[in-house]
């Protein structure tokens, strides 16, 4: 096996395990859903099958027992229980270790299998006995006829029919005959295929499961039937219930001498047709690095395109300008296509959250219903990757601290079952991700008292409820008694906020005491390229993300001269604070007579930004700022303009927060609002 193939398998395995985990978790909630049982069975089967094909025999053997177990659930022999789901989840966690060949020093794997067998035998013995009884009844002492045939390019894959035959002899097979009716003439002989089939008589006490064991690592079709022809129909049903991976046909239905070689592979493919395989033709897998490289190249292209447009404009050559326009259009199309490729649905994260909620709910003894809305909402893959940890943290907080115990809930007229809802939705160029719980809520008075005690705000600071909640994101806030309230374990919500802000997003908390808390993350759709509004202040150019720009107005004549305090604009009857970028950035020179105000919005808040001149909109390839500039919070990144110079991208959320508390001299409050 080459490394490439192993890589493909691992790739497939990751998806399969995700699907498996999702299926198991759903199954726990809806144990009667046979569709889910089938899905889990299929996933197990595919893991086993591909594992065996790629040489992971330990894995295949390990999964085999679970597959058998779920097959029994499928046939209704045993019901779905919480215990088998728990075991299957534990087994699923072992799979990556098995694939990587990691040892199992604690003996977890044997323990899981032992527990599984216990479950199976605990419920199933009656069925087992029945099956054996039925078998001996119908087949009498004569035994049953077994037919098998290797399918596909089995010889090329290294199948060894003689070993299979030896194993069957070990089961007591006698009267072994080769069936050479399928062997074609020499010129059509395919050396990769095994054209010979075999028939034999196996003792009546040999079960289907034992035969299946023999064919575990061999792609084969086999049928097991008794000699008694009038018994055929009934037997076929019984066999089908147990053996589903091979094509089932009774000897009566298809004469042994004429098993159509062409029909069989098709049938077998149909049988597996419910696996994700049919999508393979429409989708291709690309390593993430290649997409990153493509995105980088597109980013460079957009910069060069801006340069070309600039040159064409100066040159005034109509032919050049037309070409530049075409390039612009093509570059925009390429950019959109590339960004779409990088979009990943939130669903890829949700599996792990369900697991987290399930585990926490079990270990804390708080029954919780976990609802997910909008899991198809897509975000740039970089954003999704970085989102996992903050969301885990938020969910953990919600369950650990936000959610009451069962008793408390009962006392406060709430349902015994707590609700945690994770929702995602698009809102313009942003995605809103919200974690809502119906727990005890946050008490603003306690947060406030805590912040005053820690000297973060002055005792008489005027703060809105939102500003108070924002305090929990301050470094060092999550200590001592706050542990019982919302955050915990020292590493606090400040880490969450930092991560979200590094994604150019923002975070907000709303809470109603006694009714619950909701934490909302606002995230940009992409990190790579945005539409920007290029502005100029004191001869320097800056870019504002277009998505945050609400409108542009002229600075009224009576506002040109800065006042000492209370600079507000009246935008259709609403007061909007504004910032003078020239003053803020200590720009040189005098402001021009006519200035513009760009009204930007972040969250629910607006602020006006006074600039000298609006230059226009442009495609902005976002470049990260160096760590040497990490402390400059008014700047979220930089971009390269058509003339090769660098323009800084302004952090709207930070600017808005600066405008939110106008004339407030207390820097702590300003910090809080951020």
């Amino acid at each position: 096996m080459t490394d490439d193939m192993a890589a493909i398998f691992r790739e497939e395995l990751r998806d399969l395990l995700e699907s498996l985990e999702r299926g198991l978790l759903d199954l726990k909630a809806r144990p009667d859903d046979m569709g889910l049982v089938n899905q889990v069975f299929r996933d197990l089967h595919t893991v086993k099958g591909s594992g065996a094909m790629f040489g992971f025999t330990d894995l295949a053997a390990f999964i085999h027992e679970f597959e058998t177990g779920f097959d029994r659930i499928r046939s209704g022999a045993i019901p779905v229980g919480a215990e088998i789901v728990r075991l299957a989840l534990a087994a699923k966690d072992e799979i990556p270790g098995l694939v990587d060949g990691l040892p199992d020093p604690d003996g977890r794997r044997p323990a899981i299998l032992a527990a599984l067998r216990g479950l199976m035998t605990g419920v199933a013995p009656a069925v087992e006995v029945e099956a054996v009884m039925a078998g001996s009844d119908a087949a009498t002492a004569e035994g049953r006829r077994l037919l098998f045939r290797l399918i596909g390019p089995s010889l090329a894959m290294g199948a060894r029919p003689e070993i299979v035959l030896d194993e069957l002899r070990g089961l007591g097979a006698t009267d072994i005959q080769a069936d050479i009716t399928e062997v074609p003439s020499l010129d059509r002989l395919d050396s990769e295929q095994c054209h010979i089939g075999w028939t034999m008589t196996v003792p009546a006490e040999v079960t289907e499961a034992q035969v299946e064991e023999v064919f575990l690592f061999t792609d084969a079709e086999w049928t097991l039937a008794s000699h008694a022809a009038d018994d055929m129909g009934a037997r076929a049903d019984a066999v089908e219930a147990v053996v589903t991976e091979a094509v089932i046909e009774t000897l009566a239905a298809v004469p042994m001498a004429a098993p159509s070689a062409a029909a069989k592979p098709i049938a077998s493919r149909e049988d597996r047709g419910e696996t994700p395989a049919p999508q393979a033709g429409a989708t291709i897998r690309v390593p993430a690095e290649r997409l990153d490289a493509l995105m980088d190249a597109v980013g460079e292209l957009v910069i060069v395109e801006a340069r070309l447009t600039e040159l064409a404009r100066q040159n005034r050559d109509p032919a050049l300008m037309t070409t530049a326009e075409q390039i612009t259009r093509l570059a925009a199309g390429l950019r959109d296509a590339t960004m779409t490729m990088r979009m990943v649905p939130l669903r890829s994260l949700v599996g792990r959250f369900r697991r987290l909620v399930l585990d926490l709910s079990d270990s804390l003894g708080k029954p919780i219903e976990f609802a997910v809305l909008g899991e198809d909402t897509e975000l740039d893959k970089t954003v999704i990757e970085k989102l996992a940890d903050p969301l885990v943290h938020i969910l953990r907080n919600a369950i650990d601290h936000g959610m009451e115990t069962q008793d408390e809930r009962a006392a406060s007229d709430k349902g015994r079952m707590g609700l945690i809802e994770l929702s995602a939705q698009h809102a313009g160029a942003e995605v809103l991700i919200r974690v809502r719980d119906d727990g005890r809520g946050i008490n603003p008075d306690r947060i406030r008292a805590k912040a005053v005690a820690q000297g973060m705000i002055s005792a008489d600071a005027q703060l809105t409820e939102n500003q108070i909640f924002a305090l929990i994101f301050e470094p060092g806030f999550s200590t001592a008694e706050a542990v019982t309230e919302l955050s915990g374990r020292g590493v606090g919500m400040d880490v969450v906020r930092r991560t979200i802000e590094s994604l150019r997003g923002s975070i907000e908390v709303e809470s109603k005491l006694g009714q619950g808390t909701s934490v909302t993350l606002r995230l940009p759709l992409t990190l790579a390229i945005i539409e920007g509004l290029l502005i100029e202040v004191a001869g320097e150019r800056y870019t504002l993300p277009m998505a945050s720009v609400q409108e542009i107005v002229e600075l009224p004549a009576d506002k040109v001269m800065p006042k000492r305090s209370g600079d507000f604009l009246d935008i259709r009857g609403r007061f909007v604070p504004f910032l003078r970028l020239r003053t803020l950035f200590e720009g040189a020179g005098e402001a021009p007579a006519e200035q513009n105000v760009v009204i930007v919005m972040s969250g629910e808040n607006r602020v006006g930004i006074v600039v000298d001149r609006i230059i226009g909109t442009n495609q902005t390839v976002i470049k990260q700022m160096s760590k040497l500039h990490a402390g400059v919070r008014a700047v979220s990144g930089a971009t390269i303009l058509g003339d090769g110079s660098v323009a800084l991208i302004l952090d709207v959320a930070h600017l808005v927060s600066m405008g939110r508390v106008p004339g407030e001299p207390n820097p702590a409050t300003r910090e809080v609002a951020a």
Partner: protein
Amino acid sequence: MNIQDLRPEKHLTVVTLALGTQTLAVPAGMLREILDPLPVTRVPGAGAFVPGVVNVRGSVVPLADLKQALSIPDEGHDHRQRIMVLEVQLLGEAATVAIQADAVHEVTTIDTAVIEALPTTAHAWPPEFLTGLYRGSAGFVLLPNLTQIFSTLATRPQAAAL
């Protein structure tokens, strides 16, 4: 890089540059390229040590003024001014930074034995920012401890307002 770290190597290849009237030497291994002056974009609120950024072949690279970090008086600059692009360790990660040089002189190999630790008294340079010095053909040549300088710049508190 400390002076002890240099000792095991017998020779060190350095690039010498001028900052004001002072000559400095930077290990040649750190140097990525030397560029003619570029348009510098000021970063408001970033302070005097790393006042701006430049476009180095499509990357946005911070431009540091080592004169500020090493307390070397500014004597103005002329046509010999260059930008040196360096690969440094910044808080444990490789990073590209640019520094202003009033002139770039030469690439030369020095004997590590001639590098001396800084005298403990009577000099204006911040001791933690210098690896050592040696006597060149035209006076003292300083070996700045670039890893230390940039890591300090990256972690120092910045203006709270911006």
